[in-house]
């Protein structure tokens, strides 16, 4: 039978709402308002997991997001399962299931626990040192490591939940709703600042809401009573939005913060469906007020990690807030007064407190006196030197501390207990502060890092700013609010605070034991099992930088990022190396503050919304006609149109033959189109293309090659002169946006004197490309009035016309080498145009072809595709396109680079054709080309860039780039493949219709 440790009803726990849940397969009960951690503790369950390296039994240590041990898998085996969830943050609901992680086969019996006994062999850097060699053993190591370690299991099925992103703008963002955050938000909102208050828990008030120290009063009330009234008043304040269950994960520069709002994780499965589970808030705040509080520090002593050893403040919260006693025989171990508050909290509820071990010599505060009056034994100047109990703490041994705190003396006293609260003082939660780029300063007296230099408009208030006592908090908060909000009065002006808190604290980073350090296990990082001796070993081995020590020992590298132990690690390093902590600096706190789900990060951008895609106006026709599609940039382009179960190869061969024998049609709408206007448009084209443009007559088209300033081919396309000062430029499909950007750049920054205006019109027009010997007859049927004679409408010219009432622009240009027309209409008429062409072409067996056939046809003609046959290292000369480079023009983009010694080398890679000895052998694109097979290593001359079986030539053809290839015509080379060497001959890259006779056929 499990014990019930629910000791007193709490207003935050609804005892009328009993909830059953399962942990490690066993059913337990809790109440609405419990976290998984508080409900387990109420059932006397402390053992919840195993540590990462030694598999030591570990229990719940904290009551918040800093929890290092109680990391569970929620709803294992379901599609909503989530690993690495802190039991202290899971709100229980009916049907919740959770299980321990990092234990195999079970948390009670864990094979990896043997590592604990082998631990002398697992020093810092063990994994780095051991699993390095022999390399062939890695597979065995991996099996072992994966089985016995690992942090939870990822879900294996699709996430059923919806996630969302939202952008939020506010004047003031307040992070954390403890007493400081609430008062800051209230006063900001009252002064007409649009204020957002976010709190990671589901209740407001922080730790003050259950503050029980009877010697502290605000306006003559208990601080908790006073704060409840303030919280009640928030409801009536305008300009204030409050988001609970919302955790700020990242604080970037310029006050840009990311927060995760949890909307359904606390609901039963049936209430989760069709709701947004988590929402990522992208917050841009004019001012940020950090009120993130402080985290209690543990103390570092031998065997300080047993289940039942917890933070003193957590014991207090479980008792006061959840009404749960964490043990029946409690002991506290402290270096300051806060453990006494926890002890009194238990005492007032009738829970047994055996003793308080205090490393200080004394303290005279009222709360300490109260503990004495209660008859609780206090051991001053004592330290814990060891603990016992494997799966649950059952005793501690204490000894007297020497005056310098470096050793222990006298006889050992053993105290039997089942719960130990440790109180090592408080660390301001400055994680978000440092993420923003702001700088910390170490306070040598308080032994804490404090905000020092802000990089944006922000303040840190309350304990995250270094104020721990209520009177200091209120006073400093008031002044900071007035300064940052530029206001004269606040609600805080008239508040009266009485307190009895003593600041006295004795800080010893690593507490001594009667045993030598090597025989003890003082854990610094609980999740990653890094002990104080690992840190000292790292220092002995020569590590000096804190960042290196961190990585070598893995201190602070768990999912909790060492929220509890980082300060101790720094302190131990400083003490050992004999430097000041302030000089040591601190490790970087990286986002996220607590882990985020992938769902939250990607939001709605999943499945078909993962990336946007663009469809042409003819897309529906392609879909109806069973086209296969390929992605080109963001475009969905028809790739080929298989009929009667054709393979891709069969379809492409058929399409290619049809286009040359009679007629083919291609959807060319995706080509980039830039409208260029202005009195300097011709001059502009002269500067951006390699060839000359001034003399291009109106109504004529010209192919242009665009270089980068380094002389390498960047883009190509046909530009048509529509009028005196009006051109339309086409670009490659993938290059459209970049070309426009580049042209704008030159216009705005280098040539602002030019009168030129650029407009992207890619989406404005739909383009059907009609090609083949019968294309003219088909066009004639569609536009009977247009004179298509070679005299009136020659190759490389343009006509404006009408198809019925539809205005169209027709260019007689060709990318296939066939007689062809590109017909452009307003995008909304695209499908109509396409269907008209298909109808008119029916008697000529017009064949729609996709991008694959287009690529094949142009390869037969030796036309390059920028990005396939070029890769940013090819000049026009390398492409054997010298003809397009004007010798007369004084300048154009990239011209000077064509005369650099490197670009003029004769042995650069140059574009050539390749023919295989066996005409049926089709080369692989990307295959390497060599001239000598017997060399070692074989010198690589180049590679195949395009390769097809040409149905029109009935043989394999390829384009390739080959070093010095220009002078290799007819030379035999080899393409070595995995199982064979293919013999090839260098050829002219124009394989088909070398005299261009078909253009006018």
């Amino acid at each position, binding site marked *: 039978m499990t014990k019930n440790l629910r000791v007193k009803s709490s207003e935050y726990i609804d005892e009328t709402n009993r909830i059953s849940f399962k942990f490690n397969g066993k059913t337990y009960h809790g109440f609405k308002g419990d976290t998984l951690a508080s409900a387990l503790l109420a059932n006397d369950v402390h053992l919840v997991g195993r540590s990462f390296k030694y598999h030591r039994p570990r229990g719940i240590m904290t009551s918040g997001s800093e929890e290092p041990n109680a990391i569970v898998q929620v709803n294992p085996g379901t599609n909503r399962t989530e690993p690495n969830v802190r039991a202290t943050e899971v709100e229980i609901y009916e049907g919740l299931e959770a299980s321990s992680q990092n234990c195999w086969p079970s948390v009670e019996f864990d094979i990896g626990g043997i590592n604990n006994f082998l631990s002398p062999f697992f020093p810092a850097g063990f994994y780095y040192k051991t699993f390095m060699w022999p390399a062939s053993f890695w597979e065995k190591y991996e099996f072992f490591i994966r089985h016995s370690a690992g942090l939870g299991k990822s879900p294996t099925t699709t996430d059923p939940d919806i996630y969302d992103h939202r952008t939020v703008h506010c004047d003031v963002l307040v992070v954390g709703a403890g007493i400081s955050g609430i008062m800051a938000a209230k006063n900001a909102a009252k002064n007409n600042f649009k204020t957002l208050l976010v709190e990671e828990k589901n209740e407001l008030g922080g730790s003050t809401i259950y503050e029980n120290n009877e010697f502290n009063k605000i306006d003559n009330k208990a601080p908790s009573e006073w704060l409840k009234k303030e919280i009640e008043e928030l409801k009536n304040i305008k300009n204030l939005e409050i988001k609970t269950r919302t955790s700020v994960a990242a604080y970037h520069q310029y006050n840009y913060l990311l927060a995760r709002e949890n909307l359904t994780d606390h609901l039963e499965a049936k209430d989760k469906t069709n709701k947004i589970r988590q929402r990522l808030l992208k917050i841009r705040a004019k001012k940020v007020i950090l009120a993130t509080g402080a985290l209690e520090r543990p103390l570092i002593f031998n065997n300080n990690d047993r289940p039942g050893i917890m933070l003193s403040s957590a014991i207090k919260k479980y008792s006061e807030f959840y009404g749960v006693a964490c043990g029946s025989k409690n002991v506290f171990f402290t270096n300051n007064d806060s453990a006494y508050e926890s002890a009194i909290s238990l005492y007032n509820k009738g829970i047994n407190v055996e003793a308080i071990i205090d490393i200080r010599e004394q303290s005279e505060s009222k709360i300490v006196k109260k503990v004495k009056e209660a008859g609780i034994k206090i051991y001053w100047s004592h330290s814990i030197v060891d603990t016992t109990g494997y799966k649950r703490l059952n005793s501690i041994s204490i000894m007297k501390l020497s005056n310098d705190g470096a050793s222990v003396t006298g006889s050992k006293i053993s105290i039997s207990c089942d719960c130990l609260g440790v109180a090592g003082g408080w660390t301001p939660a400055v994680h978000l502060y440092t993420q923003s780029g702001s700088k910390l300063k170490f306070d040598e007296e308080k032994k804490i890092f404090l905000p020092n230099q802000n990089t944006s408009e922000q303040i840190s208030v309350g304990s995250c700013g270094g104020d721990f006592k209520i009177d200091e908090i209120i006073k400093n908060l008031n002044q900071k609010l007035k300064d940052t909000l530029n206001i004269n009065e606040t609600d805080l002006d008239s508040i009266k605070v009485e307190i009895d808190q003593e600041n006295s604290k004795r800080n010893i980073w690593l507490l001594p034991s009667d045993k030598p350090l090597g025989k003890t296990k003082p854990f610094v990082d609980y999740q990653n099992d890094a002990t104080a001796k690992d840190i000292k070993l790292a220092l002995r081995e020569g590590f000096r930088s804190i960042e290196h020590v961190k990585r070598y020992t893995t201190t602070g590298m768990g999912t909790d990022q060492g929220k509890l132990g980082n300060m101790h690690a720094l302190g131990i390093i400083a003490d050992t190396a004999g430097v000041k902590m302030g000089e040591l600096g601190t490790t970087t706190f990286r986002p996220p503050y607590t882990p985020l789900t992938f769902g939250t990060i990607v939001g709605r951008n999943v499945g078909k919304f993962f990336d946007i895609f663009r469809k042409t106006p003819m897309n529906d026709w392609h879909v109806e006609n069973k086209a296969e599609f390929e992605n080109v940039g963001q475009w969905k382009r028809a790739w080929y149109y298989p009929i009667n179960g054709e393979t891709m190869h069969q379809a492409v061969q058929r399409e290619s033959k049809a286009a040359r024998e009679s007629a083919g049609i291609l959807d060319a709408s995706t080509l980039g189109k830039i409208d260029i206007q202005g009195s300097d448009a011709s001059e502009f084209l002269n500067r951006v293309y390699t060839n000359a443009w001034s003399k291009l007559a109106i109504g004529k088209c010209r192919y242009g090659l665009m270089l980068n300033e380094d002389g390498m081919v960047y883009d190509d396309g046909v530009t048509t002169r529509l009028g005196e000062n009006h051109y339309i430029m086409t670009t490659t499909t993938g290059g459209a946006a970049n070309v426009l950007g580049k042209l704008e750049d030159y216009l705005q920054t280098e040539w602002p004197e030019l009168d030129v205006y650029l407009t992207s019109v890619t989406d404005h027009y739909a383009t059907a490309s009609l090609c083949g010997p019968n294309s003219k007859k088909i066009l004639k049927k569609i536009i009977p009035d247009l004179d298509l004679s070679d005299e009136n409408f020659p190759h490389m010219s343009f006509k404006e016309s009408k198809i019925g009432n539809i205005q169209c622009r027709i260019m007689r240009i060709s990318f296939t080498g066939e007689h062809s027309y590109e017909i452009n209409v307003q995008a909304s008429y695209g499908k109509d145009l396409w269907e008209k062409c298909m109808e008119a072409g029916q008697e000529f067996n017009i064949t729609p072809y996709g991008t694959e056939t287009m690529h094949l046809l142009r390869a037969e003609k030796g036309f390059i595709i920028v990005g396939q046959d070029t890769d940013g290292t090819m000049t026009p000369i390398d492409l054997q396109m010298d003809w397009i480079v004007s010798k007369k023009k*004084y300048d154009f983009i990239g011209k*000077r680079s064509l005369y650099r010694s490197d670009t003029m080398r004769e042995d650069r890679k140059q574009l050539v054709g390749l023919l295989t000895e066996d005409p049926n052998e089709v080369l692989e694109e990307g295959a390497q080309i060599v001239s000598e097979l017997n060399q070692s290593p074989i010198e690589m001359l180049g590679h195949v860039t395009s390769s097809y079986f040409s149905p029109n030539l009935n043989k394999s053809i390829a384009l390739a780039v080959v070093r010095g290839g220009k002078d290799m015509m007819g030379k035999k080379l080899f393409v070595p493949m995995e199982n064979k060497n293919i013999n090839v001959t260098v050829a002219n890259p124009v394989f088909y219709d070398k005299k261009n006779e078909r253009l006018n056929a």
Partner: protein
Amino acid sequence: MFLINCPYCGERDQQEFKAGGEAHIERPKQPTELSDDEWAEYLFMRKNIKGVQFERWNHAHGCRKWFNMVRDTSNDEIKAIYKMGEKPPSQ
């Protein structure tokens, strides 16, 4: 994520912008007069300093205008923003 004050549109999120490298490098007016070394200096050599740097930025997903920015690369503080063709503010 910077908040960038486009001189034409006002404050916008960084994701609307594209960085365009070092500013105030003018394209030579007479490239053919330059030696290979001089041309290479213009073509390839860019500063990448820790500290105050003059940069080109483009409001790519906004007004498409290019402008200049003075940024301290050590803490990403934007010290000044000014239009193309305007003189950089004195340091």
